[in-house]
C-alpha cells in the first residue's frame, strides 16, 4: 500500500467513515460473479493450433461445397478465387515473388485457424450462424479447393490439427518487434550536417490522380490555418451541403404559404426578392435577420412574423436559394 493511500484511509477513518472495511491484500473486491460452466461453454470458442477448443462435430468436403455455395461463394467466388474479398485459394509459391498472393493455401500456417475464423466471423453478413458441423464442412471444402486435403476428407476435432498446411513452417518470431527492449532491425543515425547526398525526388503521386480519386481536397484543411488560404472556409462548404433541399425546406417551414416562386401571394415572390437584392453584398445576412425577427414595410403593409423554425444552417440554405433566384434545381 502506498503512503498516499494510507493517508487517504486515515483521513476517511478520521471523518468517521463508519463500516469501512479494508480488504486484506487489496484484492478482495467482491465484484463480479463466478462464471458457470454453461456460460463459459457458450463463449469459449477460441481454437488453438494444437486443436484445443475445437468442438464436437464433423463435416466433409462434399457437405462443405453445399454450405459454401449457399453462404460464401457470393463474395469469395465458387472456387474461392474472387479477389474482391479475401482470396481463399491459390498463390502457393508466390510469397517470395513481387506479387505475393496471401490465401488460405499459400499463407495460412494452421487449419485450426481457418475453423476458428469462419466460426467466429463468417459469413460476413451474419457471423456465428453456422453450426459446428457446417464450419467443419466449409473448412474441409476450402482446404480441398487448395488441394491440401483429398475429396473424401472429413474435418473434425481429430483430423483438423493434423492437416499440414503448405506454409506451416513459414512463420517465425522476431524478438526485435515482440519486446519493448527488443533489438531493432534498422539502424539510422542522427546525423545533423551534410548527411544525405544527392537528394532527389524518386517517387511522387501521378498528376491528376488525387483529383480523380479524392476530388477537391481543399476542404480537408481548416480554413483558418494561415497556410490554407485556398481552402474554403468551412462555412462555405457548409452552405453547399445543406442536408435538405431548400425547396423542401420552404414547404417544411411554411414559407411557401405566403411566397410563390415567381408570383406574389401574401409576401413577395422569391424571385422578386432575388431581383431586389441582386447587387447588395450584405443581402444574405440582412435577410436572415429579417426572417428571424420579422419585418414589414419593404414589400407592403402585411408584416412577416418572426420565424424561429429553421436552424441557422437551414435558414442560410433557404436564403441562398432565394438570392440565387429560386432555381428549380
Amino acid at each position, binding site marked *: 500500500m502506498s503512503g498516499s493511500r494510507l493517508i487517504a484511509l486515515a483521513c476517511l477513518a478520521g471523518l468517521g467513515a463508519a463500516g469501512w472495511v479494508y480488504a486484506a491484500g487489496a*484484492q478482495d473486491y467482491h*465484484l*463480479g460473479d*463466478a*462464471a458457470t460452466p454453461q456460460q*463459459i461453454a457458450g*463463449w469459449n*470458442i*477460441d481454437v*488453438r493450433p494444437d486443436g484445443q477448443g475445437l468442438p464436437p462435430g464433423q463435416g466433409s468436403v462434399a457437405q462443405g461445397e453445399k454450405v459454401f455455395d449457399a453462404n460464401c461463394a457470393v463474395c469469395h467466388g465458387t472456387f474461392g478465387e474472387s479477389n*474482391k474479398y*479475401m482470396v481463399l485459394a491459390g498463390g502457393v509459391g508466390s510469397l*517470395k515473388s513481387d506479387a505475393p498472393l496471401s490465401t488460405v493455401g499459400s*499463407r495460412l*500456417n*494452421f487449419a*485450426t*485457424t481457418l475453423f476458428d475464423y469462419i466460426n*467466429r*466471423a463468417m459469413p*460476413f453478413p451474419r457471423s456465428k450462424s453456422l453450426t459446428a458441423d457446417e464450419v467443419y464442412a466449409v473448412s474441409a471444402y476450402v482446404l480441398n479447393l487448395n488441394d491440401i486435403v483429398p475429396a473424401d476428407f472429413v474435418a473434425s476435432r481429430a483430423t483438423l490439427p493434423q492437416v499440414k498446411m503448405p*506454409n506451416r513452417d*513459414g*512463420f517465425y*518470431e*522476431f524478438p526485435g*518487434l*515482440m519486446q*519493448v*527492449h527488443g533489438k*531493432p532491425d*534498422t*539502424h*539510422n543515425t*542522427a546525423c*545533423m*550536417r551534410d548527411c544525405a547526398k544527392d537528394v532527389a*525526388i*524518386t517517387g511522387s503521386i501521378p498528376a491528376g490522380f488525387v483529383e480523380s480519386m479524392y476530388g*477537391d*481536397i*481543399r*476542404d*480537408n*484543411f*481548416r480554413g483558418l*490555418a494561415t*497556410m490554407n*488560404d485556398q481552402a474554403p*472556409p*468551412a*462555412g*462555405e462548404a457548409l452552405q*453547399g*451541403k445543406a442536408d435538405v433541399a431548400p425547396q423542401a425546406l420552404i414547404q417544411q417551414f411554411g414559407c411557401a404559404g405566403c411566397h410563390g416562386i415567381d408570383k406574389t401571394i401574401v409576401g413577395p415572390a422569391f424571385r422578386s426578392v432575388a431581383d431586389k437584392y441582386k447587387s447588395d*453584398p450584405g443581402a444574405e445576412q440582412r435577410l436572415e435577420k429579417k426572417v428571424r425577427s420579422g419585418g414589414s414595410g419593404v414589400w407592403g403593409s402585411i408584416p412577416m412574423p418572426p420565424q424561429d423554425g429553421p436552424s441557422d444552417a437551414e435558414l442560410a*440554405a433557404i436564403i*441562398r*436559394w432565394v438570392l*440565387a433566384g429560386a432555381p428549380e434545381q
Partner: protein
Amino acid sequence: MDPRKPLQGRLIQAPENFLSAVGRSRREALRRLVVGAGAAAAAAGLPAAIAKGYQANPKDLPPNVPPWSQDLGKPVGADPYGVPSPYERTNIRRLSPGLTTTTQSSVAFTPLQNQFGIITPNGLHFERDHNGRADINPYEHRLMVHGLVREAKIYTMEDLLRFPSVSRIHFIECGANTGMEWTTPAVPTVQYTHGMLSCAEWTGVPLSTLLDDVGFDRKRAKFILAEGADASGLTRTIPIDFALDDVLVAYGQNGEMLRREQGYPLRLLVPGVQGVSNVKWLRRLKVGDQPWNTREESLQYSDLMPDGRTRQYTWIQEAKSVITSPSGGQHLLDKGGYYQITGLAWSGRGKIRRVDVSTDGGRNWRTAALQTPILGKALTRFRIDWHWDGSPALLQSRCIDETGFVQPTMAQLQAVRGTRSPYHNNAIQTWQVDTEGRVHNVRV
C-alpha cells in the same frame, strides 16, 4: 477558369466547386466582384491580407460593430452536448477512396492536419472495424475472464466501474498505418498517410487487477487472449508481461465513456502495441500458456518478408514521426513568410527524446522543440520556426526515442523488410514544397 490557379500573386480564386448548384450563380457573382477588387488591391501594392481567404463583410469589421455584438446570444445550454462550430464542419474523419471493398471492414482516418496538441477529439479518433461497428447496451455487456485462473468470473460494467481506476494518455496506431506508402507515395494528405493514429486519455481498470481478482496461475500463464463482442469476434494474443505491465481494460476516453467507434462500453488498451491488439467491445479474456495464432495474427497483421517467410507477433509500434503542417495538400502563399513547422512523434517503446527537422530533404537537420507533456507511448508535439524563402523545399522529421532508436529512412526499412508487407512502416516522411508553395507527398 481553373479554380485552383491563383488569379495573380497570392490571390487564390474562391473555391466555387464547394458550392452546390443552388448557391453557385449568385455567390459566384458576388465573389467575383470581391475577388476582383482584391486583385486590384494586390496589383496596386496594397496589403494583400484583405484578399486572402474568406472575404469578410466590411460591415462586420472594425470600426463597425457586427451583429453578434448586439444580438442577444443563444441560451446557456442551447447545446446540452456541445458540438463543433459549423465552420469546423469539414474537420472530419474520412475513408480513403478505393481502399476497402466494404464499409464495414474498413477504416476512417483522423484529420491529423487539423489537430492541435496531442489529444485526438473523441469524434475524430480513427476507426477500424472488421465486421462493422457494434452498438452495445452497456447494461447487457459482460466481460468473462477465465482459463488458467482460480475462479472464472463474469463482470458487469457496473462491477468494472467500481474497481480502482487509472487514467493514462496513450496513442493507438494501426499496424497498417502508412501501409499504402511502402513502394511509392500513394495518398495526398497526412490524414491518409498517417491518420490511422490517435491519442487519448484512457480510463479503466489495470488488467493486472482483474487477473489478480480471478487468481490467475502465475506459473503457467504466458499469454492472454482478448476477444471482442462484435460480429468479427476479433481475437489477439497478448503476452503476459505486457498484460501485467500497463494494459488497461478501458471504459473511459478523454473524460467520458468510450465512443461506439472505440468499442463502447469496453475495450482493451495495450499501450505501444499494434492497434488491432486494443480489442474493442471486449467480452472475454482467457489466460493460457500458448499463443493462439488467430487469423488477425497469421494471415493478417503479420509481416511478409522478402524471403517469403512471415514475422509473427510483431507487436511493437516503433518510433515514428510526421510533420502535420505544412503537409501534403496545403498551400503556402507567403514567399519569405514565417511558417511554423509542427508535427507529432511517438514510440511504442517509451518516451520521445528528440525530434530533428530538415527542410532540404535530409541533408541538414535542426532539432525541434518538444512540447510538454512528453509521455511514454503517447503522441508528443514538436515545433520549429521556418522562414520559407520561396524556393523548393523538402520537409522531413526524424525522431529518437528513449531507447536511442532513430526513426529510419524508407531505404533502410526496405533493405531489411522489402515492400510486401503493409505493416510497421515507420519511415521518415517527406513533404515537398514547390515554388508555388504547394505541398506534395513525395519520396526522396
